[in-house]
């Protein structure tokens, strides 16, 4: 047990509120205010995981979003969350977490063996090695999947829910550190609608970790709580904590996820409150005060458990009251780390500060360190950390003043914790998500944002490379004041004051030299999560990857769930050195959302389960339910699929429904068909242009089937349109195509033919349609209707009549999608249910049979009627579909798609054309989509002739039928083709696609 609890005046944990939690099944104690990471460190738990590629033992490195190693699986069952960073998990009573790596166990990892041969596992190893015979891959995969990766995705339903909230604000401030708080204060005081988001459990940012900071003459945290109190008193300001802004999109849309209940014990979570909430924030202006993250130095075995960043060491001590070790080595190249050393010494740790600079920090700091008993080693570096599953010490080397070469041996020191600081890296991610670029600041050794920000974005504080609190606040004040002027407000507040102490310039070091050629000493990690060492980057450059984007992809640098927050700058710098280029020229890889991982739950919000997509029901829904219908989804509609009686299978029910309809009468709910009311003096001309067939001679009282083509000449929709009056038509479309067709009509009218006087109204929901189908349909209608002459001569096939059905005004169309005598009764949707029930009652004596979409499909296939999107797929012309009769080539206006029908490709004779198929064995129902060959020969390359588009058992014919598209099929009637279905070859004869009543007698009856 090397780490220990200390009581710090600055600490944010509550020692009076102890908590218990479990990690890998073992019970531990922590306090309210701890993270899982701080509590694990306090309990002496060092080994948290195994590395991705080499299985190297790993522990906690950071203290927040930058953590690469400590990925844990939180909770179990439906509540489980994989790969959370222990540094970001707030501790609660009863929390249970497990490690996510280590196969077969954390203490003995198979990859660890591989790691010992790591010299033979360069970048690209897995690709290069396992590219081999495809058959062997499943064998490798089995083992690799077990050994590789991190947590396991949840398999149980999530018992919690998520929601979305939209904001429209004047100013969004990202980051609640000192600068973000000051920015929000200025915006808030100026009366602007302001939202501040911060990812941590409380605002303060680095002030939570820095016990020495002073603002306006008082401890910084006192100033922070004053600011928070002021912001909360302003009604125009909202402060959201536990809220990470993870993406910035065009027009200043920022997405942020708020962890609303994750910090509460599961049993205490409120069922009516979401677990997480996604905020979609539109801001006139964004102030990016996202701060900076300290990166480690790169040196041998710098990934051993017990090796952390200096900032993490300082945070665990001051914020959580946890000293990381009794004997601590701190390796640095900058002055800021001296505070860390002083704090640890003050808390009772023995600290050795190893400064790569020959003269160390500013004189006053050197004095303070000596006074506090910190041992100083100036001009030294760490060559290699010692110890396996926990760091036990380090071998030092003496460095020359440039820090590029080793001039001699150094002492070997024992330690139970090792910290390092490679300087700060500005958190520029959100600035760059939407095309912004950071620039390299050589003095601050960081990619930073330009002070002027960019359109709609101001930058404030450490994100600009200002590490000193005083300079950061001053820059924030100036930047936000300028923004206020832009809003037409007067900045009147005075800038808070914090005195920045003298510092010695930082010495440029990324990779600490160990005196050996790269790759020969101990592995020096750059990207911990992806096991990318300094040597790997050198190798990538040797293999001639010149662009940093390529180096990234070859080595996997920055690809992990930490998105390279600790590793990227070190990686870029090492690549720059290997390439012999300045870092500014190497540049950065592309920053993409999300800044930190976001749960699918938060992204989906309430768009899950029943609220995933709207469900549309017709007016007859309760009738269908009462008759035992099973439903299928068509577009967003719930349509009756079939109506089983008793224990009927679908097959039995459909056979019964088909026969009843062909022999007596059936009834179907056709309300879901799209309906568009088309009016205007040019309505007829418009139809002539939009449909392939002619509309000039269609009189009122008549209906016509129409085919709609796109400009490529391919069928895109079909339906029957009735002429209501010379300037008024009633169009029906396919159920799924209704919205698309309406937009299609609008686009052509508005963009190409605005001179045509015509308008369109969607009336799909306004009308209810009951289709009465079968030889007895006239008899049924006669019982319900007294004012329409239903006789075959007076009311012909493809006529429609206005009349009264069961006392309700109705538009009755004599059209048929089954080939039978049939009427479609259209009434105001309010009467839909009533009319359906009236029809059922009137049809009782004929044993009227309701049927669903399945029977509808069989009946129409028996007649060879196509379903657009099933028998056609956007590459079928009317000619291909054997529907040349529906193309009015003589129409004066060149209707949509007409010219394309004479394109050389469209007129090819070997195009796939729609035919019927009779299987040799009448009992075989082919699979839809089954491939058609011209012979039994299946040897590759197979002679593909087409595929089956529709296939059913026809009870009426007592055999199977199929529709298919076959190359040149229209001229192949009588040929035998071979269909591969259900693992067998089925011979079938090409026949006409009209199977029943080829003369069309029945529908004219």
């Amino acid at each position, binding site marked *: 047990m090397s780490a220990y609890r200390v009581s710090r005046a600055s600490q944010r944990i509550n020692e009076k509120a102890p908590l218990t939690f479990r990690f890998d099944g073992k019970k531990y104690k922590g306090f309210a205010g701890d993270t899982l990471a701080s509590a694990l460190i306090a309990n002496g738990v060092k080994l948290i995981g195994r590395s991705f590629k080499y299985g190297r033992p790993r522990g906690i490195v950071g203290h927040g979003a930058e953590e690469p190693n400590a990925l844990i699986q939180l909770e179990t069952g439906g509540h489980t969350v994989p790969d959370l960073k222990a540094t970001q998990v707030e501790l609660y009573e009863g929390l249970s977490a497990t490690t996510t790596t280590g196969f077969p166990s954390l203490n003995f990892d198979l990859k660890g063996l591989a790691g010992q041969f790591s010299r033979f596992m360069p970048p690209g190893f897995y690709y290069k090695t396992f590219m081999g015979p495809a058959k062997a891959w499943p064998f490798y995969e089995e083992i690799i999947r077990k050994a590789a990766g991190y947590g396991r995705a949840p398999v149980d339903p999530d018992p919690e829910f998520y929601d979305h909230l939209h904001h429209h604000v004047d100013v969004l401030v990202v980051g609640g550190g000192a600068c973000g708080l000051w920015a929000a204060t200025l915006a808030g005081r100026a009366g602007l609608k302001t939202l501040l988001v911060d990812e941590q459990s409380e605002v303060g940012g680095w002030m939570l970790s820095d016990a020495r900071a002073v603002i306006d003459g008082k401890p910084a945290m006192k100033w922070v709580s004053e600011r928070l109190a002021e912001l909360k008193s302003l009604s125009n300001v909202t402060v959201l904590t536990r809220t990470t802004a993870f993406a910035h999109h065009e027009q200043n849309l920022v997405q942020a996820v708020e962890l609303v209940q994750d910090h509460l014990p599961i049993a205490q979570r409120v069922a009516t409150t979401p677990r997480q909430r996604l905020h979609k924030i539109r801001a006139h202006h964004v102030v990016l005060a996202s701060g900076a993250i300290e990166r480690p130095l790169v040196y041998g075995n710098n990934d051993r458990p017990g090796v952390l960043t200096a900032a993490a060491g300082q945070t665990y001590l001051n914020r959580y009251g946890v000293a990381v070790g009794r004997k601590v080595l701190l390796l640095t190249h900058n002055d800021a780390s001296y505070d860390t050393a002083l704090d640890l010494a003050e808390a009772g740790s023995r600290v050795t500060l190893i400064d790569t600079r020959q003269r160390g920090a500013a004189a006053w700091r050197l004095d303070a360190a000596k006074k506090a008993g910190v041992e100083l080693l100036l001009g030294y570096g760490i060559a290699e950390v010692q110890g396996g599953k926990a760091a036990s010490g380090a071998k030092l080397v003496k460095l020359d003043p440039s820090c590029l070469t080793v001039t001699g041996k150094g002492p070997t020191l024992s330690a139970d914790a090792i910290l390092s600081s490679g300087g700060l890296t500005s958190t520029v991610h959100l600035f760059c998500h*939407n095309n912004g670029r950071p620039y390299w600041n050589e003095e601050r050794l960081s990619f930073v944002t330009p002070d002027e920000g960019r359109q709609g974005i101001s930058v404030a504080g450490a994100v600009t490379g200002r590490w000193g609190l005083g300079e950061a606040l001053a820059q924030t004040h100036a930047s936000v004041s300028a923004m206020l002027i832009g809003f037409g407000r007067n900045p009147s507040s005075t800038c808070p004051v914090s005195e920045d102490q003298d510092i010695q310039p930082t010495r440029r070091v990324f990779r600490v030299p160990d005196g050996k050629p790269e790759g020969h000493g101990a592995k020096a990690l750059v990207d911990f999560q992806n096991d990318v060492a300094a040597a790997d980057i050198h190798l990538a450059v040797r293999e001639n990857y010149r662009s940093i984007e390529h180096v990234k992809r070859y080595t996997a640098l920055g690809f992990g769930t930490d998105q390279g927050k600790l590793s990227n700058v070190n990686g870029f710098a090492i690549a720059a050195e290997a390439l012999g280029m300045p870092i500014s020229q190497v540049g950065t890889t592309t920053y993409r959302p999300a800044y930190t991982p976001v749960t699918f739950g938060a992204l989906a919000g309430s768009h899950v389960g029943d609220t995933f997509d709207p469900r549309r029901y017709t007016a007859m829904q309760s009738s269908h339910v009462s008759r035992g219908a099973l439903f299928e989804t068509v577009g967003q509609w719930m349509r009756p699929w079939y109506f089983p009686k008793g224990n009927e299978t679908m097959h039995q029910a459909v056979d019964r429904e088909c026969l009843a309809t062909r022999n007596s009468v059936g009834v179907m709910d056709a309300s879901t068909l799209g309906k568009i009311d088309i009016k205007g003096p040019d309505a007829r001309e418009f139809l002539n242009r939009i449909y392939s067939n002619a509309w000039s001679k269609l009189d009122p009282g008549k209906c016509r089937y129409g085919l709609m083509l796109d400009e490529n000449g391919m069928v895109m929709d079909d339906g029957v349109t009735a002429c209501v009056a010379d300037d008024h038509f009633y169009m029906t479309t396919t159920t799924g195509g209704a919205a698309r067709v309406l937009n299609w009509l*609008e*686009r052509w009218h508005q963009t190409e033919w605005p001179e045509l006087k015509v308008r369109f109204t969607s009336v799909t929901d306004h009308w209810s349609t009951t289709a009465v189908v079968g030889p007895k349909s006239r008899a049924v209608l006669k019982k319900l209707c007294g004012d329409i002459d239903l006789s075959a001569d007076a009311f012909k096939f493809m006529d429609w009549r206005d009349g009264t059905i069961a006392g309700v005004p109705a538009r009755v169309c004599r059209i048929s999608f089954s080939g039978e005598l049939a009427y479609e009764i259209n009434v105001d949707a309010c009467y839909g249910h009533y009319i359906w029930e009236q029809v059922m009652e009137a049809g009782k004596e004929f044993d009227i049979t309701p049927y669903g979409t399945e029977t509808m499909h069989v009946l129409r296939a028996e007649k060879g009627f196509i379903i657009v999107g099933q028998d056609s797929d956007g590459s079928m012309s009317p000619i291909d579909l054997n529907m040349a009769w529906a193309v009015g080539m003589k129409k004066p206006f060149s209707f949509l798609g007409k010219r394309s029908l004479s394109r*050389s490709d469209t007129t090819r004779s070997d195009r796939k054309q729609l035919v019927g198929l009779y299987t040799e064995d009448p009992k075989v129902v082919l699979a839809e989509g089954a491939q058609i060959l011209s012979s039994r020969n299946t040897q590759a390359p197979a002679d593909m002739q087409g595929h089956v588009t529709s296939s059913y058992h026809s009870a009426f014919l007592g055999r199977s039928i199929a529709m298919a598209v076959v190359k040149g099929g229209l001229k192949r009637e009588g040929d035998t083709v071979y269909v591969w279905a259900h693992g067998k070859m089925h011979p079938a004869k090409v026949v006409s696609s009209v199977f029943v009543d080829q003369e069309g007698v029945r529908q004219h009856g």
Partner: protein
Amino acid sequence: MFQIHCPHCGATREEEEFSYAGEAYIARPAKPEEATEAEWGDYLFMRKNTRGWFWEQWQHTAGCRKVFAVKRNTVSYEIAGTWTLAEGKELYLKESEA
């Protein structure tokens, strides 16, 4: 996710309300029958695929259903403005001449 101003509704609304409707001001050949295979193919398939400022059509499908012109930068996603098809066409033609 854009916010788009519909010149017909006079309102700026979220992208969800709109549908993309392709490149703007592609003229349909006046006499398609007389168009050569190449000309017709050009009209059907060839698009400018501009890098930078681009005239395109959007339709306010969940609003007024009107199609209108949008000048948008395909690199920065900046929207310079939105116009009715007729208003936009004047600007478009002026720019094409320049």
